[in-house]
C-alpha cells in the first residue's frame, strides 16, 4: 500500500546531460501508471531514481508522503523487473525467487510458503528446479515477475519488461500483467516506448519527451484531448497528422488552410469563434487523425491528393500522401476495408472537420475552457 510522488525532480548526469527536468508526477495507491515516450525521453531514469539506482539531483521523491531521496535501494522495499530480466544465471528458479527473501532474513518456512504462492500464481511450479538458461523468454519473464512479487513490495517497477518477447507472447503477457496487477493491487510504474502497450495497460498514462512530462491522463483522454503536438503525434497508430496552417475570418465562419484550400472550422464543444479570435491571421497548426478521412465525398470538405504509397493490413489500409508543397512531408490516412488504389493517382478525400484539432504556434493544443477543465 503506497503512493508515489515525484516533486519537481530533475536529474543531471555527470557528463552534463539532463535526463529529467522539473518532473512532477503523482501515482496513487494501487494504480498502474505507464510512463511512455521515445527512447532517451527520461522514462527509464524516472524509474531508476525511484528504485534508488541513481541519485536525485534536485527535488523530492516521496513514498506515502515520506521523502526517500537518501534511502538505499535495500531500504526502499521496491521490486523491479528489468528489460533483460536480470535473473541470477547461476541460481535455479527457486533460488532466484528465494534470493530477496533470504536477504530479508525470513525464516525458511516463510520463504518456502511465499515461493509456493508466487510459483502457483505465475505457473512456475514445474520450473522451480530449472536454471534460467533452460527457460524460454516468456518463462524467464514470469520468473522475473515472481522474484518481484514474492517480497510483497510497496512499489513494483517494470522497465520495458516485454520488449524482448515476440509479438504474440507480448500481447498475452500484457494481459497477464494487467490481471496480476489488479489482483495484487500493488502500486506499479511501468515504462515502455510502445504506445499500444501504454494505452492497453495503463490505468493512467504519463507521456514524456526529452526529459519533460507532456501529459498525464487516462488512455482515452490522451487520444481524444492531446495536450500538445507531441502527444497528438505519439498516441494513436499511426499518430495524428499535423500541418502548419493559418486561421482566417470568412463570411459565415472561421476557416483554416489545408492543402491549398480554405475549410471551415466546425462549431462544437471544442471550438467557438470567441475563443479562437486571438488566433485569427496567426500561424497555427492543424491536426487531423488518420481516421478523420473518407474516400468518397459525403462531406462538403473535400480535397484531392496524390497517393504515394499504400500499406494493406487486411482489415484496413494505410494511404500515404505527399504534402511537401504544404509543409508537412507525409500525411497518413487510415481506411477500413480493401479498395484498390493505384499509386500516383489523385484520390478525392472527404474530411471530417468535426475531428479537427488546433495547436498554437508553440505546439499547445487549443481547447475551450470547458474542455480544458475536463482534462
Amino acid at each position, binding site marked *: 500500500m503506497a503512493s508515489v510522488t515525484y516533486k519537481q525532480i530533475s536529474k543531471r548526469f555527470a557528463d552534463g546531460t539532463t535526463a529529467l527536468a522539473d518532473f512532477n508526477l503523482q501515482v496513487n495507491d494501487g494504480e498502474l501508471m505507464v510512463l511512455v515516450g521515445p527512447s532517451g525521453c527520461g522514462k527509464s531514469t524516472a524509474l531508476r531514481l525511484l*528504485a*534508488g*539506482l541513481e541519485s536525485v539531483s534536485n527535488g523530492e521523491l516521496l513514498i506515502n508522503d515520506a521523502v526517500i531521496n537518501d534511502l*538505499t*535501494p*535495500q531500504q526502499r522495499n*521496491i*521490486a*523491479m523487473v*528489468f528489460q*533483460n530480466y*536480470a535473473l*541470477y*544465471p*547461476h*541460481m535455479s528458479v527457486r533460488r532466484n525467487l528465494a*534470493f*530477496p527473501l533470504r*536477504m*530479508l532474513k525470513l525464516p525458511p518456512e516463510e520463504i518456502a510458503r511465499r515461493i509456493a504462492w508466487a510459483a502457483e500464481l505465475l505457473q512456475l511450479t514445474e520450473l522451480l528446479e530449472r*536454471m534460467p*538458461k533452460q527457460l524460454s523468454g516468456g518463462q524467464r519473464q514470469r520468473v522475473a515477475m515472481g*522474484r518481484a512479487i514474492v*517480497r510483497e513490495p510497496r512499489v513494483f517497477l517494470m522497465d520495458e519488461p516485454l520488449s524482448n518477447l515476440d509479438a504474440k507472447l507480448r500481447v498475452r503477457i500484457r494481459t497477464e500483467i494487467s490481471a496480476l496487477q489488479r489482483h495484487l493491487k500493488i502500486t506499479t510504474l511501468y515504462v515502455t516506448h510502445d504506445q499500444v502497450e501504454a494505452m492497453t495497460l495503463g490505468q493512467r498514462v504519463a507521456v514524456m519527451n526529452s526529459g519533460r512530462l507532456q501529459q498525464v491522463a487516462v488512455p482515452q483522454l490522451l487520444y481524444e484531448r492531446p495536450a500538445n503536438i507531441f502527444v497528438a503525434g505519439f498516441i494513436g497508430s499511426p499518430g495524428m497528422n499535423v500541418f502548419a496552417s493559418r486561421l482566417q475570418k470568412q463570411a459565415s465562419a472561421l476557416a483554416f488552410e489545408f492543402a491549398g484550400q480554405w475549410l471551415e472550422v466546425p462549431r462544437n464543444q471544442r471550438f467557438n469563434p470567441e475563443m479562437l479570435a486571438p488566433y485569427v491571421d496567426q500561424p497555427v497548426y492543424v491536426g487531423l487523425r488518420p481516421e478523420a478521412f473518407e474516400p468518397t465525398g459525403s462531406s462538403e470538405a473535400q480535397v484531392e491528393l496524390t497517393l504515394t504509397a499504400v500499406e494493406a493490413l487486411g482489415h484496413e489500409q494505410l494511404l500515404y500522401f505527399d504534402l511537401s508543397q504544404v509543409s508537412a512531408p507525409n500525411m497518413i490516412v487510415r481506411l477500413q476495408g480493401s479498395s484498390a488504389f493505384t499509386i500516383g493517382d489523385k484520390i478525392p478525400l472527404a474530411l471530417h472537420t468535426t475531428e479537427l484539432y488546433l495547436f498554437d504556434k508553440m505546439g499547445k493544443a487549443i481547447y475551450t475552457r470547458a474542455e480544458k477543465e475536463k482534462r
Partner: protein
Amino acid sequence: MLFALPALAGLLMFVAIPFLLAIGLAFTNLRLGSPLPLEFVGLTQFLRLFADDAFARALLNNLLFTLVVVPVQTLLALALALLLNQPLKGRALFRTLFFMPVVFPLALVSVVWILIYAPGPNGMLNSFLQLITLGEWQPRDFLHDPWLALPAIMLTSIWQGAGFQMVILLAGLQSIPEELYEAARIDGAGRWQRFWYITLPQLRNTLVFVMLVTTILAFRLFEQVQIMTRGGPRHATTTIMYEAVQAAFSRQQVARGAAITVIFFLLVLLVTLLQRRIAREERL
C-alpha cells in the same frame, strides 16, 4: 588438408616427436658421452628417482610452493582486481603498475630480488626490516638460509605473477552484467552479499582457470631457482624442473632428465583433469 601440412609438420617435429622421444628415453640408460651401449632398462630410472633424496625434496618443494603461492597470489590478484574495478582516479596508472612485473623477464626480476635479499645490514630488505622493527631485526642471508630461501623465492614469484592474474580477473569482473548488481541491490543485498552471491559465482570459471594456470606455472618453477639459489642451500629450493635440467644438461643424464619430465607431465595432467572436474559442474 594440403594447407595444413606445414603446420602439421611443425607440430610433429617440435611437439609430438620430442614428446614421444622423451617418454621413450625415460626407459633407457642414455647418458651423453658414456661408453655404455644404449639399453632398455625398464623402470630403473623411475625407481632411482624415487630413492633419491634430492628429487623427493624437489617434489616436496613444488608442493609447498604451489600450496602457498596459488592461494596467496590468487587472493592478492582478486583483491587488486576488485580495487581496480572501482571507478578510482588514476585507475589506468595502477593497472599498468601492477601488471609491469609480468612484462619484465624473470631473469631480470631474479637479479633485482637478489639485490633486495642481499645479506648483511646493508641489504635492502634487511635494512628495511631493521628500520620498521627499530633495530630489533637481526640481518639474515635470506637466499642461503635453509628456512628462508624457499619463502624468499615464493615472495618473488607472487610479486611477479599477481599482475597477470589480476588482468584476467579484471576482465572476468568486467564481463559480469551490471544489471545483476542492480537487481541484487533492489533485492536487498548489501556490498558483501553482492560479492558473495553475484561476483564469486560469476567469476568462478575465471578463478578456476587462473588457479589452474598458476598451478602449472608453479610446477614449472625454474628460473628463479636457477638464478637466485641454484637449488640450494642443501636442496632447500630445488624443484622438479631444476632437477630435470640439472640431470640432462649438467650431468648429461638424458634418460634421467626424460624420466623426470614424464613425472612432471603426469602431475600437470592430473591437475588439469581435477580442474575440469571442478569447472564442469556449473558451466553456464
